[in-house]
């Protein structure tokens, strides 16, 4: 691990001012906020992350989970994943989020990992994590060995010729389906970013993963008021039963009235280069009868643009069955 200066800013403004001096908030950042450390310390040990300054934000007053004036939920940036997953309001009104978090990582990691940190979770692509290998995400322009190499677990949606890395988060898949909003404070003021706009597709700049700029501090995430009567499910398929990243997952929020689907929010995990909201599946479901045939059509629509890598053609059918099964279970 490279040496760094450990700083504990006294308030958010000091944290933002210190971070604003960084050259970038993306890959290669020389200043990093430290939340739970579960991603950052891991990557610092591998020399994938080499910040000169580490800003410990764990003691800033950003860990509250509270109801908003409009009946939604405000989730502080440093709220721990376990506190969020077991929060009574989340379990009752946003159960897909609770389910997604509890199917990710382990109990220890969920006690450490923060909500904002999970938004910035890095890919598990083996080439990204190994500094002896080329990687366009880690070192732009060096190439992508994953395209012709080990890519079984990598993306089939949203990949580019530069990068096929999967976003590994479960929590983000649920947040995508719940229409979350990310709130960011910077030296210029505060702004709100719709969840679907927060993560970027790799395109020709895979080192840029989010819209964050130097000095941007995620302060909280909000959820709109709950959809009363909705049926919610997170289904995760993986190589072992627990403590493993998704090969395919689906977050489903369905409202059904008299056997017809009146509203559907669908997102997929484990298959995309970002948490993958599927308007195609939502369009295929809305206004249709809640039947197996409808669910299969929605799954076909969700994966229509999928392009397999050399080792993961199976993921297309796996993701379809994952979504179909999630819809059928949620609707039952």
């Amino acid at each position, binding site marked *: 691990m490279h*040496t760094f200066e450990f700083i504990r800013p006294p308030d958010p403004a000091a944290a933002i001012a210190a971070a604003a001096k960084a050259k970038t908030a993306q890959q290669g950042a020389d200043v990093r906020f430290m939340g739970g*450390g579960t991603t950052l310390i891991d990557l610092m040990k591998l020399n994938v992350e080499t910040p000169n300054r580490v800003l410990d934000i764990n003691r800033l007053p950003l860990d509250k989970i509270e109801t908003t004036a409009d009946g939604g939920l405000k989730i502080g940036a440093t709220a721990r994943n376990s506190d969020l997953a077991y929060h009574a309001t989340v379990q009752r009104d946003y159960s897909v989020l609770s389910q997604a978090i509890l199917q990710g990582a382990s109990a220890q990691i969920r006690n450490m990992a923060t909500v904002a940190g999970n938004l910035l979770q890095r890919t598990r692509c083996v080439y990204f994590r190994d500094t002896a290998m080329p990687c366009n995400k880690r070192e732009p322009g060096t190439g992508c060995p994953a395209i012709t190499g080990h890519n079984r677990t990598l993306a089939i949606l949203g990949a580019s010729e530069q990068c096929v890395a999967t976003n590994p988060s479960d929590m983000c898949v649920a947040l995508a389906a719940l229409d979350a909003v990310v709130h960011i404070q910077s030296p210029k003021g505060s702004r709100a970013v719709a969840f679907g706009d927060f993560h970027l597709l790799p395109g020709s700049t895979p080192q840029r993963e989010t819209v964050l700029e130097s000095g941007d501090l995620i302060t909280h995430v909000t959820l709109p008021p709950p959809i009363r009567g909705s049926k919610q499910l997170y289904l995760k398929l993986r190589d072992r039963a627990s403590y493993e990243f998704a090969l395919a997952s689906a977050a489903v929020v369905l409202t059904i009235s008299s056997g017809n689907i009146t509203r559907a929010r669908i997102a997929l995990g484990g298959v995309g280069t970002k948490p993958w909201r599927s308007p195609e599946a939502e369009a295929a479901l809305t206004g249709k009868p809640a039947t197996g045939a409808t669910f299969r059509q929605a799954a076909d629509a969700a994966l229509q643009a999928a392009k397999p890598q050399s080792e993961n053609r199976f993921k297309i059918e796996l993701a379809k069955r994952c979504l179909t099964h999630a819809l059928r279970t949620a609707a039952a």
Partner: protein
Amino acid sequence: MADNPQSDPVDPSRRRFLKTSGTTAAVGVISAYLPPHASSAVEPTGESEVNRPTIEGAVPITLRINGKDHKLNIDPRTTLLDCIRETVTLTGTKKGCDHGQCGACTVHVDGKRVLSCLNLALMHDGHEITTIEGLGTPDALHPMQKAFLDYDGYQCGYCTSGQIMSAVALLKEPCGPDDASVKELMSGNICRCGAYANIVAAIQQARKRA
């Protein structure tokens, strides 16, 4: 160690086992690899303040571990795990993968289980840290330690302190009554020997007694 805990008095100290089982050569080898300041790890004295050479860029910190304050001077890069093992010389907490994938380094921070390998020691001033040494003593075992002995919840023992720290934390977490719920909440602790069946049995027994 004892094959049958029912008929054989169990000495739960693995280090004492090494010293009393006639493997004096093994003890000699182990001692040779321990730095002089780590002698307290071989013969626990309760005193773990150590004098260390000055480290460039080191930062002073007071860490509260097992109810005792330790005034330390540490390199900011020091993980909580390395601080506990190397600086404070409490070697019950184990380093397995060092990347958050195995659970061997599990300790409690303010009563919650965390992975000490993915935390910096500097993040934890003012926190109450508990390691396996703070759970029980050979003469007064924590009920979970006793259950692991009774149910033979280990083979080589390397993952055991992490398993027990996780299992003790699990007692206060939302966990269904069945074995499947225990397995799910213990999935972050890998046992390469495969003692899982006995580990689950030990935890279920301790939950019944709790």
